[in-house]
Structures are given as structure tokens and as C-alpha cells.
């Protein structure tokens, strides 16, 4: 499903990944964890095709990739519901589905608000709702619960667990609770991600 073969990635003179191998079979749930700047987000961006490796090869066999970015990346001129609907085809017929996803992340009342009217945690939940609504067979989650209130985390975590079943999941996180709930672990150690 996902295969990294001796992947290197450098930004100018700074090497972020060196000879990284990673194999994620279809349906597996993998968490990447390690200190800030070790390349977790880079692995997700390479998987999504947003970056090209400096050396080595990245192979991804996925029909649709859903990506909950670390920053919410919402269209600022569209409401929360319209942002979710944008990945569903942007038609009036799909708007109800978009709203039901917002309801699932506890944002039914915020559907008509613009991103600037939402808190950081609310924007992050719209970001998650958009990723789940897209129904990708590969789900990339980058620090998905980072800005969420403690009382909201459990319900969102349960939602993620429910909707990641049967899909391949790649999760970048610092948070042990996310790892326990969602995925097997790859830890950054001695300059590489290794299975814990």
C-alpha cells in the first residue's frame, strides 16, 4: 500500500530523511512519533505526493487519499459546511452529508460560520470532518487532536477509530493516547523511524 525505499529528503543543506524504508500494508494503522522536526509531517507529505524525495522511491497504492493537515487549511471565504462540501463535489445534493459530518465532530451549530469565526480547535475539527467525509482508502492524520479541548478528544478519537477501520492509516503524533487508540508505532530513533 505504502512503500518507502531508501528515501532521502533534504531542504537545501538540511537533511530531513536519510535512507528511510517504510512498508505499510493495506489496512494497517501506523503511527509515526518522535521529536519535533524529525520528519513526521514530511513522511505524510511524501505519501500524499506533495513532496518528491531527493533520492529513493515512494510508492503509494491508493485510490483516494484523505489528509487532515496539521494546520486546518480551510478555504477562508467558505463556511465550515462549504469547506467540507468542497471535497464532496460542492453540490447542493451533498450539502446534507457535509453537515452530518460536522455534526459528527460536534460542530452542527457552527456549520454556517467562516473559518475566522471558529476557534483553533473548531477549525481542526472541520479539517478532520473534511478528511473523514472524503472517504479515502488512505487516511493521513497529522497531529489530529493537537488543538482539541480535553473533553472533546475522546469523542473525536472514537470517531476516528470507527471511521479508520478498513482503511490504511498513517498518523503523525506526539500524543500517546492517540497511538494507543489508533495505531501501531514507528518511533524516530538514531536518525530513522523504526518499529517500536
Amino acid at each position, binding site marked *: 500500500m505504502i512503500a518507502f525505499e531508501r528515501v532521502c529528503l533534504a531542504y537545501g543543506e538540511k537533511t530531513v530523511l536519510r535512507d528511510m524504508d517504510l512498508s505499510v500494508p493495506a489496512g494497517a494503522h501506523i503511527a509515526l512519533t518522535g521529536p519535533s522536526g524529525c520528519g513526521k509531517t514530511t513522511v505524510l507529505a511524501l505519501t500524499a505526493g506533495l513532496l518528491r524525495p531527493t533520492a529513493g522511491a515512494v510508492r503509494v497504492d491508493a485510490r483516494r487519499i*484523505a*489528509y487532515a493537515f496539521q*494546520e486546518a*487549511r480551510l478555504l*477562508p471565504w*467558505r463556511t465550515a459546511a462549504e469547506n467540507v462540501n*468542497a471535497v464532496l463535489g460542492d453540490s447542493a445534493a451533498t450539502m446534507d452529508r457535509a453537515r452530518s459530518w460536522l455534526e459528527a465532530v460536534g460542530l452542527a451549530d457552527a456549520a454556517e460560520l467562516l473559518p475566522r469565526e471558529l476557534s483553533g480547535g473548531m477549525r481542526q475539527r472541520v479539517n478532520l470532518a473534511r478528511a473523514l467525509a*472524503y472517504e479515502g482508502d488512505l487516511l493521513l492524520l497529522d497531529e489530529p487532536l493537537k488543538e482539541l479541548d480535553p473533553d472533546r478528544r475522546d469523542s473525536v478519537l472514537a470517531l476516528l477509530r470507527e471511521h479508520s477501520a478498513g482503511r490504511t492509516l498513517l498518523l503523525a503524533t506526539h500524543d500517546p493516547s492517540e497511538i494507543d487508540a489508533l495505531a501501531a508505532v514507528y518511533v524516530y530513533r538514531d536518525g530513522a523511524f523504526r518499529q517500536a
Partner: protein
Amino acid sequence: MRRPGKMAKSLGALAFWLGVWALLAWIVDRELLLPRPVTVARRLAALVVTAPFWRVTAVSLGRILLGAVLGAAGGVLTAAGTSRYRFLDAVLSPLLSVIRSTPVASFILLVLIWVGRDILPCVIVFLMVLPVVWGNVSTGVAATDRQLLEMARVYRFGRWQTVRRVYAPSVGPYLLSACHTSLGLAWKAGVAAEVLTVPALSVGRQLFEAKLYMDTAGLFGWTAVVVLCSLVLEKLFTALIRRLGRRRMLGGTEI
């Protein structure tokens, strides 16, 4: 809607400058050099009740607006091309910079060699507006949030949907600002071209003839028409922007 206080301030300023004008005309005391405001108002009133006045103004307005619309469309297309293809940018940038810094009078005289006087103002306006719109739209494209473009790629928006959902709202405020600047520029350059080339039906011809026959009140009257048309166009454009802004089609940004 404009607040009453602001309206009173504008009217006060207008009354002040009319007073200054009347005082100067009274001091000069020669209608040929500086006509009194009341003389110009009478001349203008005499003009507006004639059918040729409206025909001349409409033809000039249409000609200039056509040039402005074509210039804006050309600017957007050029910016799209130069933002997408580096070689096109390398080829067109020097040319557009030359157009932008060439004096409008040089252009008028040069273009007169190649095109008829009736369409020359339209061509001049096109050439004045295009580089302004191109420059602003290119800046808008370059300033578009890369993270949103990545999001659009991941969720496979496609080229057209990416333009519609990401680029258009990002570039909208830059385009509007360019159009706002260009509107005044277009009107001034268009009338200047008409004055130098005197097409049959044009405000420029009326200005030229008023000067030729030393009809100073007429010259002031036609100048007032140019100023009024420019103000009305600007107000209409601002109203259009507010309407689009309310519908959040342009990133909700006002100019």
C-alpha cells in the same frame, strides 16, 4: 450607505472650492480666461438638453469602457500565462514594463500610424489598463496560499475547481484594486487620445473644438462632464464590489 455627516463634509468641501473658483473668477474678471461657476453651469445646462450631447458622451463612454474591459481581460489572461509558464514571463515582462513606462502621448501618436482615429482611444485604453491588471493579478497569483493549493491537490479539485475555489477568491481583491486604479486611468487616457485624434463623435473632439473656438465655458463644461462620468463610473464600480463582497465571491475584501 453614506453617513449624513460624511455627506455634509463632502458637500461642504465642494461648496468651499466652488467659492474659491467664484472668487478667483471675480478677481480675474475675464470670462475668456476663467469663467464664473454660474456661466459654466448655464453652458452645461444648455448642453445636456441637446441630443448630440448624450450621443457624444455615450459613444466616448462605450469606446473607453470597451478598451478597459478588453484591457482587464487581456491583463488577467496574460497574468495567468506568465504565472504558469516562466518562459512566457521572461518574454512578456520586458514588453509589458516598456508599455507601462511609455508616455501616453507617445503611444497615441504611434498607434495613430497603425489604426483609425475612431478606434484609437479604445486601443490606447487597452494598452494603459492591461499592464496594471497584469501586474496586480500576477502579484495576487504569487501571493495565493501554497498550503491551500496543496490541499486542493490532495483532494483532487482539478484545474478549473482550483481556479474557482482557491485562485479566484485570492486574486479577486488584487484584480478589483487594479480595476479601480485603471478606471480613472482609462478615462483620462481615453479622453486625451480623443483630444489628440479628434474622432467624429467624442468628448475629446468637443474639448478640442471648445479650445479652438475659445469657448472657455464650454471647455469647463465638457471637463465637468468627464469628471462626472469618472465619478459615476467609480461609484457604480464600488457598488458592484460591495455587492460581490457581500456574496463572498471576492474573498470578502473591500478596496
